[in-house]
């Protein structure tokens, strides 16, 4: 016969263990272990977050001839939203304009300011020495410069 001073405390501990094991599975989230040690449902939750950038394909659905315009022809390989900002709103409701239409010098300089760290083949100028009083778009958005960059 096991004396009470042994089986009572050990019994309580065993009871706690059994209650834990019994109750635990009730609280494991429903989709846990579906793909692995995580809530399977979380993939769907994360995948249903709202999209902000529509993607170039969406722009091209309507604006397929944009590549013929002087400025845009040189930036054909660039995604529209790189400059025009996240524009899913515009795709869904065209009356809502894209978030950005940058035309100022700082915007162009962001990519085209001469910088040692940029690849040598990338078109870049020292903006301060390249017609500093003129806006980039005066020359670079007209047919005048078709043969130059």
């Amino acid at each position, binding site marked *: 016969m096991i004396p*009470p*001073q*042994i089986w009572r*405390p050990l019994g309580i*501990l065993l009871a706690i263990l059994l209650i834990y094991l019994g109750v*635990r599975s009730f*609280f*494991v989230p429903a989709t846990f272990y579906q793909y692995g040690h995580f809530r399977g449902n979380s993939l769907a939750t994360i995948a249903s977050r709202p999209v902000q950038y529509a993607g170039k394909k969406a722009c091209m659905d309507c604006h397929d001839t944009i590549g013929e315009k002087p400025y845009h022809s040189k930036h054909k390989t660039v995604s529209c939203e790189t400059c025009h900002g996240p524009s899913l709103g515009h795709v869904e409701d065209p009356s809502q304009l894209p978030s950005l239409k940058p035309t100022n010098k700082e915007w162009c300089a962001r990519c085209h300011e001469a910088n040692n760290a940029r690849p040598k083949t990338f078109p870049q100028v020292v903006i301060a020495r390249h017609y500093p009083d003129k806006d980039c778009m005066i020359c670079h958005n007209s047919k005048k410069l078709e043969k130059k960059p």
Partner: protein
Amino acid sequence: MAPNINPAMMEALQHVKGYIFPNELELQWGILIVIYPYLTGLVAGAFILASLNRVFHIRQIEPIYRLSLLTALAFLVIAPLPLLFHLGHPERALEVIITPHLTSPMAMFGFVYAWYLMVVLLLEIWYDFRADIVGFSKTKTGWLGMVYRILTLGFMDTSEKSLAVDDKMGRIITIIGIPSAILLHGYVGFIFGSIKANPWWGTVLMPVIFIFSAIVSGIALMLVLYVVTGRARNTPIKTECMDAMGKFLFYALVFDFALESLDWFHRFYEAEESIDILVLLVSGKLLFSLVGVQLILGTLIPLTTLGLTQVLEIPKKPRKIMYFWSAILILIGIFAVRWNVVIGGQLFSKSFAGFTTYKPDLIGRESLLVGSILLIMPFIILWVLTRFLPPWRGVGKEISHSS
């Protein structure tokens, strides 16, 4: 995008040296995570000291045996609090035991803690104090009496035979308890030691260093508590108990220092990728806390002082004073060890090319104020426990474990 800029963080941005990955500006584990291993270390150390008496029959430590168990319990109860305060979602904390990810040492925390609390510490205390509990259940009235009666679990026998069973069970649990205590604090060391991304943490020696610094801090704590409680209760402080604790403290410190030195020697010798940034760390941001507090104040001075007590014939009174102050310095030093590991490991960037800064808040969730409260609370709980279950002999039935 008008941000809710935190001015303290923007200030910190100005103090970055070299290059850090942009996300590394803010330290993730702060003062609360320094306090947590300090507390569990004291738990493990106090218990191991108690086991020296119980299992290895070091008779001289008998006077603080029961106090050590209560100390371990007081600190263990507070230990999860810094973690809970630190979590982003403490209300989800139970997920760690509902869906524990078994590859994570942190997931094992829930089980190791529960095991240690329930199967080792609470059971051990119950067996050791049962005779007293039965005694109190008969004499105390009201709510308090009810608590004692529940604690007896309905078993009121305090005959010699019954007490012998208590003693035997206590001994078995202590034997199980020693590896459990090592596991309790060793896994904390493994949490750091397992991180290959961080060379200050990710070393095989980390769990071992944690365990031995825990033992050192636990013995030091009990030495201090023995003196403090002795003075408070106006009872004599037994020299042979102090001598025994002083001796074990000394040898534990020697071994701990040897381990830390090995770690350093090994790092310098191997001189692998991270050595440059780590040398900058130790000679710069960690100079005061590592060389000043941890090494000189917390290790070398106590080592010398304790060493002198072992080697020279020093009269009782100054010897006790040397033990006491060495213990205080060691307690400060071991806190610095935790600080240097936790904070030090995050001050340098994983790019090995720069440093960030850390200034704990004065008030707030993760702050010096909360940290201080968490460090004081175990003593308050210990005080309450000693009123509830007086560890000193002469109150309940006398039980000697030294036979």
